[in-house]
């Protein structure tokens, strides 16, 4: 890709302090995100996958500075936003938006859908009242809702429709970059396809860049161009979608793919399962975080953390053995 990245993240860290006792002393950290770097080009989707507690949602929020990163730099269209003041940040928010997982709690129950979608326009003083209304009506039609539904409250919509309202709100300011945090996970199977298609159509139309966060590997394989796999706060594999799904290199990616149940009973797969639970990010295992569950682990994996290194064709893997 020759175009400059819409978003470039380098060395992103987010530690949540654990405080105990009367004096709220800091006794340790939850290393939710521990040195994550990636970039997304215009019109590209980066899929960020991993299991619960791996830090993928924290990355999504830290990238938008909805939570303050502990370290690292984030550049949107070449401009470093990590040093932007609160004031500057508010203006910069026009360029980046977010769509959440839960279609119920992501809309204020007391505000009409039309006002929810129009709110970003109002905040940034875009147009006059009637112009804003026309724009909201347009957005409603675009995401597959009727303009007449602008007067409805969120509870009058189904889960899929609410997610459309959320998407319309995210599009209102015409941002170039959208974080989609598990946008279809809470939806019924037959509705998921509608929302995925909508997101992909919008991307083609407007050249949007997505950071698509999901635990559903099949959805990510469908929507993403490149994929980053996270485990306990670190990216363990970062590759082109086709390459990654065709031949995962990191043992964790391999285990993840092997664990997904496939809707094809004729397929008889060799089952190789990883044992054990995901360890706590408060006290992650030494060396490679995955070594206690890894079937191939050697002595080196227990002591030395592998770095994410290029194994050719822009593919990155953090594993001593690959």
């Amino acid at each position, binding site marked *: 890709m020759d175009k400059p990245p819409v978003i470039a993240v380098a060395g992103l860290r987010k530690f949540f302090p654990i405080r105990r006792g009367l004096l709220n002393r800091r006794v340790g950290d939850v290393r939710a995100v521990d040195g994550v770097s990636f970039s997304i080009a215009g019109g590209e989707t980066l899929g960020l996958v991993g299991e619960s507690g791996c830090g993928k949602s924290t990355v999504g929020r830290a990238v938008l500075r909805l939570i303050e990163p502990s370290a690292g730099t984030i550049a949107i269209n070449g401009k470093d936003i990590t040093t932007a003041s609160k004031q500057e940040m508010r203006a910069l928010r026009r360029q980046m938006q977010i769509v959440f997982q839960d279609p119920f709690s992501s809309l204020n129950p007391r505000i009409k859908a039309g006002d929810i979608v129009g709110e970003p326009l109002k905040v940034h003083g875009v147009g006059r009242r009637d112009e804003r209304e026309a724009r909201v009506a347009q957005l409603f039609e675009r995401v597959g809702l009727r303009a007449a539904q602008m007067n409805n409250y969120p509870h009058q919509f189904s889960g899929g429709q609410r997610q459309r309202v959320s998407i319309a709100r995210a599009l209102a300011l015409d941002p170039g970059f959208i974080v989609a945090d598990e946008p279809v996970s809470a939806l019924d199977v037959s509705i998921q396809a*509608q929302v995925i298609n909508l997101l992909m159509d919008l991307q083609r139309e407007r050249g949007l860049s997505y950071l698509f966060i999901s635990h559903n590997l099949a959805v990510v394989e469908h929507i993403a161009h490149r994929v980053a796999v996270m485990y306990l706060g670190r990216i363990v594999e970062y590759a082109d979608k086709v390459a990654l799904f065709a031949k995962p290199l990191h043992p964790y990616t391999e285990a993840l793919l092997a664990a997904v149940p496939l*809707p094809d009973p004729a397929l008889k797969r060799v089952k190789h399962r990883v044992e054990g639970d995901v360890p706590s990010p408060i006290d992650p295992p030494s060396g490679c975080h995955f070594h206690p569950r890894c079937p191939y682990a050697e002595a080196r994996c227990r002591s030395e953390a592998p770095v994410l290194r290029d194994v050719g064709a822009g593919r990155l893997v953090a594993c001593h053995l690959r």
Partner: protein
Amino acid sequence: MAPVLEVSGLNTVFHTRRGLVRAVQDVSFSVEAGETLAIVGESGCGKTITALSLMRLIPQPPGEIVSGSVKVDGTDLLRLDDRTMRQMRGGKIAMIFQEPMTALNPLMTVGKQIAEMVMLHDGLPKAAAKNRAVEMLQMVRIPEPARRAKEYPHQMSGGMRQRAMIAMALACKPKVLVADEPTTALDVTIQAQILDLIGDLQREFGTAVLLITHDLGVVAETAQRVVVMYAGRKVEEGSVSDLFARPLHPYLRGLLGSIPRLGSARGLALSPDERLREIPGMVPALSDLPPGCAFAPRCAQADAKCHAQIPPFEAKQANHFAACWQA
């Protein structure tokens, strides 16, 4: 072989402010020993209400099981008095839930909860029941079972809790296990472990498993037979291979077409510009069902008859049933 669980003509309704809601309409199926039958469908299709009806755990009111029978080893659960039903629950038919945290008592150690079950149903003395609890925890592959038995549910991870709940459900060797979305709240790698575990224990005990799920992948990997439900009714039933290879009902065909599949490794993946096939519209509200086939408003093949009359559930091929005028 005679089926262990035989459900016929089950009808469950809810009396709500908006009127009568028919959550389960005329549902029948049977499960043999050692077999897994999956009920699939989306939220509001009646699959969970069916499971709760079997256990007689429907809150009454507003719910009511209007008619039908649920036979476990020939005994109709719907005709039992409450006392005998309590004996059956956990003893002959057990259930595991999506969120084990809500199903386990937070104030009692896991070992004690299992021991209580065993004392209640098998009449074992306390010491023997405790040993049995540890044995069960070991059987569900919880490491250090003796220590874990002394832990409270909140001290365990989600996967561990689900194992503990399975241990409790199977402690009295029930004939039937009803598993309602047992892995939906879990991560994929843990889901795979739990599904393997249920399968292994089922083979060992010969338990009949009724698996309630929305995940077609889980169905394909674990079930032998499948019932597809839509808006409170069965719309298709057959062996897992028939259903996935030759889906008859447009709803199932739509569902199978709409899910993205993991397939780069198999050369199956769609090209990046290819759209998923959508099922238009949304699931109708149970309080406001169309007069004919409930799926007709979303169905591309629907004609006048579909909109007017409810299609009968009948055999379309050998051992493959569907409720569709067009199939």
